[in-house]
Each structure stands twice: as C-alpha cells, then as structure tokens.
C-alpha cells in the first residue's frame, strides 16, 4: 500500500522539535549510569528554583497527609521517592510533550501522561520479576517515555486514522502498528526512536522506545528493557489507561517468559501495585489542576 503521508514531513517535524531541557538531559544521563544515587537526582532539582518549588508543593499535597509541612528538598524527595521526582522533572521540563491532546488517537488532554505514568509504574513492577540482570533501574523511565512518538505522529495520523480503523475493523490489517506502517510508512515507535536520537537519549532508552511493540527484535543487550516497556504498556491498556482509539489494539509478544517470571497471579499483583502508585502520583502531581480521566 502506498503511504498516505510523507515520512520526510514527519522527519522534518522531528528536526524542528525544541531542544531538550538541560534538566531532562542530565536526569536521563544520571539514570542510565549503573551506580547513580538519589543525591545525583537531588542535585538536578536543587539548582532549579521552579523545580524545587514544585517538588516541595507536591510533597506537601494532601495525598501524603503530612502533619508538619516539609520545607527542605532532601526531606521532600525522601518522602516522594525517586519515581515521583523523576516524573515531576520529566513532566515539567518537556513542554506539551505529555499533555497535549492526541487528536489522531482520540486522546484527550493528559491522555499520554496518564498512559505513560501507569506504564512506568507497571514496567518497574515487571522489572522486579526479572530472571536475569538487566538495567532494571531504567524500566520506570523506559515506561514513561515509550510512547513519545505519538506526540509528533498524532497530527499526521489524524488525516488517515478513519481509514486505518476501517482496515482494522474488517481485519485487512492485523493490528494498529501494521495500520500505522501501511498508511504512513512509519509507526509511532520508530518516530519515538528518532525523537530520542534527536534529543540524544541514552542508548538503552532509545532502543526500548523503538522496540516497545516488538521487543523480541531488540538487540540482545536491550531486549529485557524493551520487554519491560512492552509489558508496562500492555498493563496500562488493561487498566483502561490507554491513549484512545489504539487501546488494546497491539499484540502481546509472549517472548517475555524468557526474561520475566510472570504468572496470572503476579500479573494481577503488578496491576494492583501499579494502580496504587499511579493514583498517588496522579493526585499529588495534579495539586494545581483538576484530574480529568
């Protein structure tokens, strides 16, 4: 099938993306080192007054129920835990990336953020069940970033999505990723990978983004991380935290069993734990705005 969209136009949109905030670049570099410590994350926050104020505000939100207000950054970060701090840094320093409505996917404002956050908590829970050593510390961030490609792709996709949904409905295209590739010559995973390269993300995150729907095809050293992002994505869709018309429209790669000890019971535990953490994060991070599912 002849692509309906020029991939050159998509690549031009990637090239025109604003440069990444130094805070995010530093955070991702820190997270991808083997032996980073919480202090390394604290150091990113403390030199940015706005970020410090946000972290303190979140720590003092009613969700955490503190009797005495927290006034120091170290204490705030120890209350919140690193996942919420990483979420604050990424959410507050990436402009509209996670929050703009995804018209091509019928996704409302914050749909991408909610999906990615649930996937991130799920990916980090999946990582606990790893059979072999891998960059488990990166699983949360890989889950949080896996779908960034939809941000660039959505306006292009909007023009052809009715045709794609028709093909999927009648079975002439097997799944959503095939529809994206057939109609545009690219898919959101590939576009996310090119964004990650444009922004010079660490290699493991680039690969996890590229292979989050096809983890078995990832280079061996990044395969477990790609599977963690893949399974986190699946969990988020099962929990109803999808990005819109593509919810549950992607196949599960059951090669995960080589990397993770997953049973129906442990999967239920993952969904439960991810939901608890997700709810807490979404409530505390939304102290200034109405949460709208």
């Amino acid at each position: 099938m002849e692509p309906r969209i020029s991939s050159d136009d998509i690549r031009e949109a990637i090239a025109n993306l604003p440069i990444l905030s130094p805070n995010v670049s530093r955070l991702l570099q820190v997270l991808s080192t083997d032996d980073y410590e919480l202090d390394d994350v604290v150091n990113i926050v403390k030199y940015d007054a706005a970020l410090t104020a946000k972290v303190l505000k979140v720590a003092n939100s009613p969700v955490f129920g503190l009797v005495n207000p927290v006034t120091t950054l170290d204490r705030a970060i120890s209350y919140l835990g690193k996942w919420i701090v990483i979420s604050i840094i990424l959410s507050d320093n990436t402009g509209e990336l996670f929050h703009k409505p995804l018209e091509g996917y019928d996704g409302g404002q914050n749909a991408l953020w909610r999906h990615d956050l649930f996937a991130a908590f799920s990916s980090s829970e999946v990582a606990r069940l790893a059979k072999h050593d891998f960059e488990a510390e990166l699983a949360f961030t890989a889950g949080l970033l896996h779908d960034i490609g939809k941000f660039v792709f959505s306006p292009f996709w909007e023009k052809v999505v009715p045709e794609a949904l028709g093909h999927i409905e009648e079975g002439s295209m097997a799944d959503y990723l095939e529809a994206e590739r057939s109609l545009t010559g690219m898919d959101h995973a590939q576009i996310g990978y090119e964004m990650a390269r444009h922004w010079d993300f660490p290699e493991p995150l680039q690969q996890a983004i590229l292979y989050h729907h096809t983890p078995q095809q990832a280079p061996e050293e990044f395969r477990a991380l790609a599977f963690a992002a893949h399974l986190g994505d699946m969990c988020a869709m099962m929990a109803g935290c999808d990005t819109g018309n593509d919810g549950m429209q992607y196949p599960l790669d059951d090669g995960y069993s080589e990397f993770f000890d997953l049973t129906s019971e442990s999967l239920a535990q993952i969904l439960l734990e991810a939901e608890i953490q997700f709810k807490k994060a979404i409530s505390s991070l939304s102290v200034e705005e109405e949460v709208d599912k």
Partner: protein
Amino acid sequence: MSNIVLGIGDYGASDRPGSMVKTYALGSCVAVTMYDPNLHVAGMVHVALPDSKLNRAKGAECPGYFADLGVPLLFEEMVRLGCQRQGRGLVVKLLGGASVMAGNDTFNIGKRNVLAVKKVLWGLGMGPVAEDVGANYSRTVSLYVDSGGVTVSCPGRGQWQI
C-alpha cells in the same frame, strides 16, 4: 443532575431522576450494572480483579476493586435504596472484561473477571440478562436512572446500546 462517576474499584447507586451512573475506560475491568425498573434505581460497580485474597488490605480499603466483595456491596446499596433483598426484578448487565491481543492465557484477566463476577452473581441468585464483554477494546459505560438504558462507547468505535 448529580451524576455518579465511578473510578476503578468504586461502586454506587442512584434513584435521582434525570441522572446517570457512569464509568470510563474499563479495559480488562468489568462493570456490573443493576437496575430496578419499578423503583428506577440504578447501580454500578467497576471491578478490576477477581478475588480479594490477592491483597486483603486493598480489599478492606477499596472493596469494589474485587469481584468477590464489590458485587455483594453493590447489591446491598441497591437494597438500601429500596430494592428487594431477594434480588427479584433487578436487571443485571455485564460490560468490559476486554483482553489484549495475546496468544496465552496469562494476560486474560478480563475473562477471569467476567467469570468471577458471574460466580458471585449466581451466589446471590442473579444472572445477567445482557452482556457486552471480551474482545480487545476498552469500554466506557453509562446507566440511566430514568430508563435503565445502558450506553457503551469506545474511541474510534462510536456508541451503542446494550
């Protein structure tokens, strides 16, 4: 209007004319709706997992999250609003329980949720008169107090009645 909007693990019922009970994006979760056509009482629970044995603390904090606790609690709420304790005359419907596109059964939590809900309903002497469950798409469900009508919608698939 006082519509009731349920999140994951919430349950609620209403007899307020003109209102509805609604829940968004079920995924593999299951919504059980109950409706009394004589009293115009409408109730719903948004169940996420089959059995509270998985995590007793979560069951105590949010019983509607599990089929074994949530369905009986919804029924009690219907009784509190005047429905018969025998469950006679209640119109019960099941929605949701979707699954990702998987070749193995591990990820089929939607199916396990549907089976668990049916088992609890049978224990209460009830069964669904209609269901829209399974497949691989997420459903948003609204139950209307005045008519008992159930509307289902899904991004990209439109809206339909059950």
